[in-house]
């Protein structure tokens, strides 16, 4: 199976803090990581490769330091990696990003399956996967928690508010996966050494067939009007009491009186 996994290098937003004085983001010292959802996507791809043979290629669109994310994916087991990078891609929203990635994937040739993480933990939009599928005119299933492939038939479980759906489709298809799908493996020592030596090509706008009007800022219908820190909820009251029992009684009393419960 020819599988492509799209990954993104993101700041570890679980480590980001807000400066309580200036109310701005403290980005210093926040490490860059492979988007956690993408690690699950890579693991799913590797498991399919182990079962059905083939090749796993990881692709990312980003600045040159995104190569570190690709190297980590190779250390985990990806066969090939490609960095898609060009100043022209800068400032892209999800439409322009998905278009650029789709152009890169078209250049790769025959692809059976594209697996993406459901969302990136910085943008949190969960849009690039489906938009890529549209650019490539491919079937899509989002929020996948299980993948089974038999020949050309693909059967997946898709998360749903009340449980999950069992959906059948065919190769080629684009899937976005959620965390419960698997436990991502760690890179191995040998994989890390191999990844370190690996030449990872960079594809610029000139290397692919692209319509310049659909790249970067020019190709982005949405714009950021402003960024601000979320308004703090006003802290309520802390119920003080000597014993847990008393505190519980007071709380229950308040909630019942105010008809909150």
């Amino acid at each position: 199976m020819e599988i492509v996994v799209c990954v993104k290098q993101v700041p570890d937003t679980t480590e980001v803090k807000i400066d309580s004085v200036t109310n701005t983001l403290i980005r210093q010292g926040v490490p860059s990581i492979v988007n956690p959802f993408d690690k699950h996507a890579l693991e799913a791809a590797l498991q399919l490769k182990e079962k059905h043979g083939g090749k796993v290629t990881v692709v990312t669109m980003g600045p040159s330091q995104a190569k570190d994310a690709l190297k980590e994916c190779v250390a985990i087991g990806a066969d090939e990696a490609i960095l898609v990078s060009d100043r022209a891609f800068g400032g892209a929203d999800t439409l322009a990003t998905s278009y650029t990635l789709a152009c890169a994937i078209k250049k790769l040739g025959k692809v059976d399956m594209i697996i993406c993480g459901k969302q990136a933990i910085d943008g949190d939009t969960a849009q690039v996967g489906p938009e890529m599928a549209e650019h490539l005119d491919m079937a899509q299933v989002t929020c996948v928690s299980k993948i089974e492939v038999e020949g050309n038939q693909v059967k997946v479980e898709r998360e749903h508010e009340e449980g999950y759906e069992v959906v059948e489709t065919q190769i080629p298809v684009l899937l976005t996966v959620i965390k419960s799908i698997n436990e991502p493996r760690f890179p191995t020592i040998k994989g890390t050494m191999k990844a370190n030596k690996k030449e990872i090509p960079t594809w610029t706008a000139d290397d692919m067939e692209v319509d310049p009007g659909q790249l970067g800022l020019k190709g982005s219908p949405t714009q950021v009007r402003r960024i601000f820190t979320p308004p703090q909820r006003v802290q309520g009251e802390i119920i003080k009491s000597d014993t847990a029992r008393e505190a519980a009684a007071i709380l229950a009393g308040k909630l019942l009186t105010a008809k909150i419960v």
Partner: protein
Amino acid sequence: MAVIVNKEECIGCSACISACPFGAMVMEADKACITDACTVCGACVDTCPVNAITKESEQAAVKIDKAEYKDVWVFIEQIDGQVKNVSHELLGEGRKLADAMGEQLAGVIIGDEVEALSKEVFASGADKVYLVEASELKNYSTDGYTTVFAGLINTYKPSVILIGATNDGRDLGPRVACRVGTGLTADCTNLGIDEQTGLVAWTRPAFGGNIMATILCPEHRPQMGTVRPKVFKRPEQDFSKSGEIIRVASKVKGQGIRTRLLELVKVCTTSCNLEEAEIIVSGGRGMGKPENFRLIEELADVLGGVVGASRAVVDAGWKPHYHQVGQTGKTVGPKVYFACGISGAIQHVAGMSSSDIIIAINKDADAPIFKVADYGIIGDVAEVLPALIEEFKKAKAC
């Protein structure tokens, strides 16, 4: 568009460096410099004390006649003939937008034999309903619904589209937006009209909930967004209202639908349908061990609520992921949210900040959860929860 630093004005104070959420600003020779990572969000523009940073406009490459696009549409998501709550919430909000814009509000109903749903759509404030019915459209499918929706957009040219940010909504939204070549803003928690431009201003959390971004879609139509359920209230319904039903034939062919729903397995009906719950009792690692989660379950039971869990608890395998509340789990907006043994990390709060009342129980007085809670008890959940359960049992009995 680009963000430019006027190097002569720049005093090298570095305020912009820390303001940039993307780490795209660096100091070079005591002047601020913008790197490739810039996304033109403009956060630095506001922080500069000497106004040395400006955001320049560029002519848009695409020019469409925006005047041709009118009206606010809401996608009416239905399953098994039931309209989802979020669609009504969006009709309520859509009504406000339509009124502010001086235009009409329409519901888009796609399915099989679903005409009867128009009644409640009108009752929630819609002026029109676009109805597309076909047996192939009985269940949601990406291909079927995208084709229908894109067709409607191309024919009827709406100015604004609101879709509930449900699993299906977030599957459909991007596909449609891409097909018609427009901008989509995901998972909005606030909507408004931007004073300066008259455009819809879409506000949403990013960076795991650490920041909020307000997005505009200036040159492309329709302006689209998926909106988080339970952020807006269901409007009062008036069943005396009615409106125009525009029936449109479906051009979808069976072979055009590349996915097939084999079965819908309901794992949770009430027990983990957090999105629709009025009361959620949630537990975190502070519960101590998985066995203690029965206290959470008991309290939820007594109150008629649903059990939630923090990411740590789900990662540790104490509870399946259906219960996870947070930026990468489920986002919820119940009337009451009990956070028990949950520290209150931003990613968790981002998932439940739309709750009306938050109650926190944690033995760590410094836990961030207390900053967002309306009521808090600093104590051991193992002692407080049984006492609470008893109090509510007593109250129920009388």
